[in-house]
């Protein structure tokens, strides 16, 4: 399952994006103002990457065309300046994703400690191929590149946090925690 050559998730490179509305709470708007204040006058665009994270967090982990246009408006820049950034960085999603995305590190150090076996195990357990979302929309398994946890391999990123020193048993428990809605978000910490 992890053996495919094509490594590029082309889903993210489409410049067109999808429609899906946008929500910006007062809290996020206040946060955006704070982020903007950290950069000099005339250089507010610097806050773009951080703002996109906040907006994506509030909008089911993906960025619709409306969301990107809204960010452009808030920063006083052209929509294309937002689109080109969103399509460059792998953490921004331009289409809906599973509720719980298991982003396994598939790079060398993790492979030496069994990351490939664990990805296979997880895919099989959930009945999906790499990249696919389960029928109930709950889970998605992805392979990503080194996450800076090479000594704590095998590992994955789930939402805002890392899960390290994984084993099949730990995967089972993690899946159960997801189903029970027990996964913490950073904003709540």
């Amino acid at each position, binding site marked *: 399952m992890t*053996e495919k*050559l094509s*490594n*590029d998730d082309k889903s993210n490179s489409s410049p067109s994006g999808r429609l899906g509305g946008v929500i910006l709470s007062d809290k996020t708007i206040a946060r955006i103002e704070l982020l903007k204040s*950290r*950069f*000099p006058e005339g*250089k507010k*665009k*610097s*806050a*773009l*990457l*951080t703002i*996109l*994270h906040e907006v994506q967090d509030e909008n089911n982990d993906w960025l619709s065309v409306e969301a990107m246009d809204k960010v452009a408006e808030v*920063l006083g*820049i052209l929509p294309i*300046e937002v689109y*080109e*950034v969103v399509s*460059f*960085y*792998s*953490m*921004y999603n331009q289409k809906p994703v599973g509720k719980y995305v298991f982003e396994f590190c*598939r*790079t*060398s*150090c993790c*492979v*030496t*400690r069994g990351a*490939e076996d664990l990805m296979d195990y997880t895919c099989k357990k959930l009945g999906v191929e790499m990249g696919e979302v389960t029928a109930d929309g709950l889970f998605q398994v992805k392979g*990503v*590149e*080194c*996450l*800076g*946890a*090479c*000594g*704590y*391999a095998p590992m994955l*990123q789930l939402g*805002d*946090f890392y899960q390290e020193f994984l084993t099949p048993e730990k995967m089972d428990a993690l899946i159960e925690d997801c189903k029970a809605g027990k996964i913490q978000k*950073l904003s709540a*910490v």
Partner: protein
Amino acid sequence: MGKKILLEHINVPGIETYEVYRKTGGYASVEKALKMTPTEIVEEVKKSGLRGRGGAGFPTGMKWSFIGKNNPTHHLVCNADESEPGTFKDRYLMEKLPHLLIEGMITSSIALEAHLSYIYIRGEYMWVYRILERAINEAYANGWLGKNIKGSGFDLDLHVTCGAGAYICGEETALIESLEGKRGNPRIKPPFPAVVGLYGNPTVVNNVETIMDVPWIVMNGGEEFAKIGIGKSTGTKLISASGNIKKPGVYEIELNVPVEEFVMSDEYCGGMQTDRPLKACVPGGSSVPILPAELLFKTAKGEQRLMTYESMSDGGFATGSMIGSGGFIVYDDRQCIVRNTWNFSRFYHHESCGQCSPCREGTGWLEKVTWRLEHGFGREEDIDLLWDIQRKIEGNTICPLGDAAAWPVAAAIRHFRHEFEYHVRFPEKVKDRKHFEYEPWEKVKYLMAKQEAMAV
């Protein structure tokens, strides 16, 4: 036990909070630096012999002295993008010692006469971003940041900002582009950031660990720092150890420890993970050449190899490697070098920003050819083809990512050509990805010899 500069207080409970950090002597270097002239601080750093810990090993004091004097608006940017496979030390440092980074940023900003500085952290480390954000707020609240710091007349604003998943943003000019809210496309150098950097102003970009060494140097003097280590490898360095060893983790070493001791002693890696023998090691992050076991503990000349910039690169690329970012990855004989080369090539293809054709196309070719070799579809001429592709990438690109993609391939072929040949000659055997787990290399060698004998 070797001397600890960065991790000295790592086990003090609560060291990540301002109060505890301050009690262990934290922020003293700022008080001292505020009474020194910028030139004096730069001189101390020069005397220390400190070299950049981000990978290139460029002398920090010298880099600082290049900062453009024509434009009075300077910036210091801390590179916390850490995404070189094998490297995870900066995350550890920032999680545990956020205030040491802030102290280093303030002291270094004083030396560089920078009044607006940033820490750029990779987007995946979002919880670390929050740790830093909180620590910066504490530093503001205690008068270490903002206007007229501790009545000195020196102003400094420091903020943390984040990326969003792009290895290339660790390259300093791509990082600056990204920090300006753009795609992470590296800039053509010259001009160097020290002349035209963030917002067009003179800018110094330094690694997290480099910045964290500065407070100690200011407090104890450059000469004391230079006494640790050997020759031009001064001070201590953090090594991120991973792969098939007993105790993966982050270790602070004096730059004079023998490689063998580092791998085998219980103080560090604790020896191999299982009873399977050591096969190879990538000693400085995925971009540096891989070393076969026989060149790891001893150089080609038969001398003991040390964890220093010089000893690690002894023999050049023919028989040496580089200490790079300190990402020390150990492979035992279950691991397949061809598979690993494919893994790294895929990484670089995935991470190429796509600006220059040799890198954009070349990394794709490297990935495709290593993939087909590893999966039993290789051809005899593929090994030479790989060699040819990597040679045409190296040196022909805007930024060093091209070289970083080429070097691992070149080194793998240089030291493990027989393994590539095995993949071409026994395609059925390599189709299962665990081929070396089931069949140790000794048996593989026997198979190869038998086939050769039959051909004669």
